[in-house]
């Protein structure tokens, strides 16, 4: 096939429209979400004292952090799906969840506490957190990568890592309703570690899946 023939063929396909990436990503995440929720309800479930916990601002702050992570990672993912895009000028979005976390830690530091700092940091659920978040993230990560394959990222590994942050943010939002450790120190330690694991897996998978 010579190049003129190829050009004519591509022209014949001009009318074909693919889904916008935002929509493709959303549909893929919606398809993956039931799998993650199944893992959650089968293995963990919402903590029994959730109604009283909701009056604790540090319980609510966990959701602010994880949702901010998911939302900013979605925005960055969509940006990076364009071939000429880079993290420059956009990477700071990812600092929003970190900023909320830092503010929450300083808030907690200023309040009188019954338990010592290290006890709050280590908590009771660190191992559950480290397994549940990656396990619930994995279906979402596969979905996110599937949706983002419509894109053309310049650096597939970076785009994959951000997809990892995105799925970890969503998974952690659900997990936070199970976890009885509400200290921002716990969140900053264990949620961050779990998220880093998912981001690394995302980078490895994205490096293959997101090449175009």
């Amino acid at each position, binding site marked *: 096939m010579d*190049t003129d023939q190829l050009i004519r063929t*591509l022209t*014949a396909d001009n*009318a*074909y*429209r693919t889904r*916008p990436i935002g929509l493709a990503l959303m549909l893929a995440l919606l398809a993956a979400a039931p799998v993650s929720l199944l893992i959650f309800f089968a293995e963990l479930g919402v903590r029994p004292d959730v109604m009283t916990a909701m009056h604790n601002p540090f319980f609510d702050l966990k959701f602010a952090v994880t949702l901010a992570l998911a939302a900013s990672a979605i925005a960055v993912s969509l940006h990076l799906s364009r*071939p*000429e895009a880079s993290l420059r000028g956009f990477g700071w979005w990812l600092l929003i969840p970190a900023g909320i976390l830092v503010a929450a830690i300083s808030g907690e530091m200023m309040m009188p506490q019954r338990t010592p700092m290290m006890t709050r940091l280590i908590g009771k659920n660190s191992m559950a957190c480290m397994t549940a978040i990656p396990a619930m993230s994995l279906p979402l990560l596969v979905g996110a990568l599937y949706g983002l394959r419509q894109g*053309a990222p310049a650096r597939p590994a970076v785009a994959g890592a951000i997809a990892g942050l995105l799925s970890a943010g969503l998974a952690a939002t659900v997990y936070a309703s199970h976890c009885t450790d509400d200290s921002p120190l716990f969140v900053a330690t264990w949620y961050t570690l779990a998220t880093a694991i998912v981001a690394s897996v995302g980078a490895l998978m994205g490096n293959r899946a997101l090449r175009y």
Partner: protein
Amino acid sequence: MREREDEWTDLMRSAISGDDAAYHRLLRAITPVLRAAARRGLARAGQPVDQSEDIVQDILLAVHLKRQTWDTSAPFAPWLFAIARNKLIDALRRRGRRIFVNIDDFAETLPGETPEPTASPSEVTAQLQALPARQRDVLQSIAVDSASIKDTAAKFSMTEGAVRVALHRGLASLTAKLRDR
């Protein structure tokens, strides 16, 4: 140079709103620029320049399949050159060379410089044979026999919609095969 790139942007906008003739003109206009850059990249990597046409076709396929990632309010050339650079680096890497590809390789090609293809490309043609029968037949009919979508539909007793789907899937799997080979 500016003028040329503004014209590309206008053509791509028309193409996306459904103007096939504009799309055809655009692809024909960018091809010599891509060809010159591919040759320069190959030459600098110490590779025979007669493989440039395979790279050009690789880039054209990617431009086509990824065109929804272009933001219609942005200029077209930076988007095009980002895709072309990515594909050129891939091609050189596959040939065992890691080389720095300068974005100016694309941007600095003079409008008057319109090299003709030197050797006939072989990679797309080879991968075409490996496609599922239906996709291959439709692609062959439209690309090689220059049949329209309507004639192709009649020839294989398919609906026009089915031909369009097979055509698009064929182009997508062709690209996947070229990438993963």
